[in-house]
């Protein structure tokens, strides 16, 4: 063909393809989800993966139905580095602003992950009127208390995972059971020197004392402390039977390994013990992590049959990312995307105030139970029965596997004592 004819053929072909209707998802403007997360840390990347899994599933089924059109979700993740000790919160806030102003995020899901940063981000979200669903990290009760106190200002903020007070309640349910079964009475508490851990530890001490437990010690370790020998020895010398650990810093691995080596006759019962939540914990401690209990805050982060959706999520996550759901943040971020989709579809649009109203009316049977928000404080309503509300999970490492031992409604095993503790 001559050049001139070739050129006109090309022009005709291009025009032809431009007129052809493109696939429905590709033609519609995506709904942008902004995710400010600390991706170098477990709570950050677990949330990122949960979110992306949900977004991929929803987009594969066509997307979100808004005003008759199907629009896909798109996720923009910005690493806020807010869990790193040397980084100021203003960095995280700048990341949130970048998502809202520069990347034109329609909704914020996920973070910021550090309680301090999340609290500081609330006025920002209220200023820009962006709906935010917190799904990982932030455990402080101050978050939903602030929403309740100044509802009109902070009504855009939601939290879909359990918080510190829930965790305390769940722990005590287990303590009571252990007391009945094995006649345990001595409790030793070790906590990290951060606001939520310290607050929770003091709360545990108060409640335990009222319930008749003998609290033999409350040690608070600063972030970065690497020697817990004296604490452990004190626990041993005072015949503590349970050591309640509130630590999400990596040095907790030192504590647990030493516990195993010294064969301290006390059950390590942890809460948000980030090191122990991950599937890689077993190999990382050469099995010395056995018998460690930790609270992964929401079901779905460890295998159980809370609802029909739980294992579907569990297996989908494992298939997509090559590793099992890793800890706090995986299941909650996944559900947050679905809950948001549900609210957008009922609201019929992206208007923040309408979406807020619809989110308050959420009633979805999700991965970890029936998900509803408290209309005044925008905190997800917890329960011990998945049919009633959002269930948590406490797991224990047994023979290399994470076995869910609480709540009873979804447990796949029961608490075992290490061999050197058998009476």
């Amino acid at each position, binding site marked *: 063909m001559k050049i001139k004819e070739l050129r006109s053929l090309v022009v005709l072909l291009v025009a032809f393809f431009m007129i052809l209707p493109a696939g429905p998802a590709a033609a519609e403007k995506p709904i942008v989800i902004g995710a400010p997360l600390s991706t170098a840390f477990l709570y950050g990347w677990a949330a990122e993966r949960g979110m992306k899994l949900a977004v991929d599933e929803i987009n594969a089924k066509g997307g979100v139905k808004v005003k008759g059109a199907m629009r896909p979700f798109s996720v923009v993740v910005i690493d806020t580095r807010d869990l790193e000790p040397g980084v100021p919160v203003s960095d995280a806030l700048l990341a949130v602003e970048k998502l809202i102003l520069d990347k034109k995020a329609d909704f914020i899901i996920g973070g910021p992950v550090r309680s301090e940063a999340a609290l500081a981000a609330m006025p920002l979200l209220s200023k820009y009127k962006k709906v935010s669903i917190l799904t990982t990290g932030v455990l402080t009760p101050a978050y939903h208390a602030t929403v309740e106190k100044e509802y009109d200002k902070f009504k855009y903020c939601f939290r879909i995972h359990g918080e510190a007070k829930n965790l305390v309640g769940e722990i005590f349910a287990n303590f009571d059971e252990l007391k009945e079964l094995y006649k345990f009475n001595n409790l030793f508490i070790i906590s990290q020197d951060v606001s939520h851990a310290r607050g929770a530890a003091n709360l545990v001490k108060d409640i335990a004392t009222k319930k008749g437990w003998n609290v033999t010690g409350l040690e608070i370790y600063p972030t970065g*402390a*690497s*020697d817990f020998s004296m604490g452990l*020895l004190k626990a*041993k010398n005072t015949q503590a039977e349970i050591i309640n650990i509130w630590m999400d810093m*990596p040095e907790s691995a030192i504590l647990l390994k030493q516990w195993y080596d010294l*064969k301290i006759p006390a059950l390590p019962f942890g809460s948000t013990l980030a090191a122990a939540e*991950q599937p890689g914990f077993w190999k*990382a401690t*050469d099995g010395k992590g056995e018998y460690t209990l930790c609270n992964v805050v929401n079901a779905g982060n460890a295998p159980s049959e809370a609802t029909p959706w739980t294992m579907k999520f569990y297996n989908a996550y494992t298939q997509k990312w090559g590793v099992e759901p890793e800890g706090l943040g995986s299941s909650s971020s996944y559900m947050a995307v679905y809950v948001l989709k549900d609210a957008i579809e009922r609201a019929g649009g992206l208007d923040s105030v309408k979406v807020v109203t619809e989110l308050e009316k959420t009633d979805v049977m999700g991965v970890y139970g029936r998900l509803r928000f408290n209309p005044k404080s925008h905190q997800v309503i917890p329960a011990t029965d998945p049919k009633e509300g959002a269930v948590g999970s406490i797991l224990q490492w047994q023979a290399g596997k994470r076995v869910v031992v609480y709540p009873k409604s979804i447990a796949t095993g029961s608490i075992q004592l290490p061999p050197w503790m058998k009476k």
Partner: protein
Amino acid sequence: MEILIYGTINSAALALYALGFAMVYGVSRLPNFAHGALFVLSGFMTWYFLNSLELNYFISIILTLIATGVIGALIYQFILIRIRGMEISEIMATYAMGLAILEGLRWGGFKGMTYTLPAFISGSVDVFGVSVDYQRLLVVVIGGAVVGLLWLFTHYTRMGLALRGMAQDERAALMLGIDSDRMALVAMAFGSSLAALAAICLLPLGNIVVEAGYNVLILAIAVCIVGGLGSWMGAVLAAFLIGFAQILTVVYLGAHFQMVVALLAIIVTLIIRPSGLFGRQKELEERV
């Protein structure tokens, strides 16, 4: 009794952290702010040799010690040698390097809490009625051995004597024909290997995380200042001082204040006796 044993263990750990920094500063007046980064880097290197290349543990350790020493020497030869003598630049350059290494490790995927090294020996034993695990006992043994070997090295071998001479008086050493740059290179290589040794002994107690780099740096500097910048024996003594102070604080005051002790020690030292316990920088005694 427990205080004595665990105090000694804590002190040995601190001494291991600090010796590398003290050696480099003592010989060449170079504050190596990349010390913590080298610590973490060698930990991850051993992990890599052990797990990804599936080498024998012992061989991985030897390889890491050599590799870290080489890295230290390279850092000196290509970067630090050009800014030697300019204090501000040295501090900033080594700090920037430490930052680059640590953040580079994080970007390279070494994040999370699942990277660990296996302990040399597992299990525990009762010493005078106090149970201690073997790895911690080994820390004390290795720490003691290192200090002893260092003493022998710097008193009885040519290279060691040269390093010591350099540390005592640079001009006199130069007059005797000891090459300042070569000694600084050797000191840097040694200091880095010492950091690697500390990593190998202490990391099996827990896991390897990038944040440990910053903590190690602070502790090493604290110990060296209290002991006197530039004095090796001073660093060891200061390690004992701070180590026991920390353990006593934990037992009697509360674990709360552990980190504050180290920082307080620095400030107290600077107010009362700026050159530290054994510091030989007499100019500092003259307050300006």
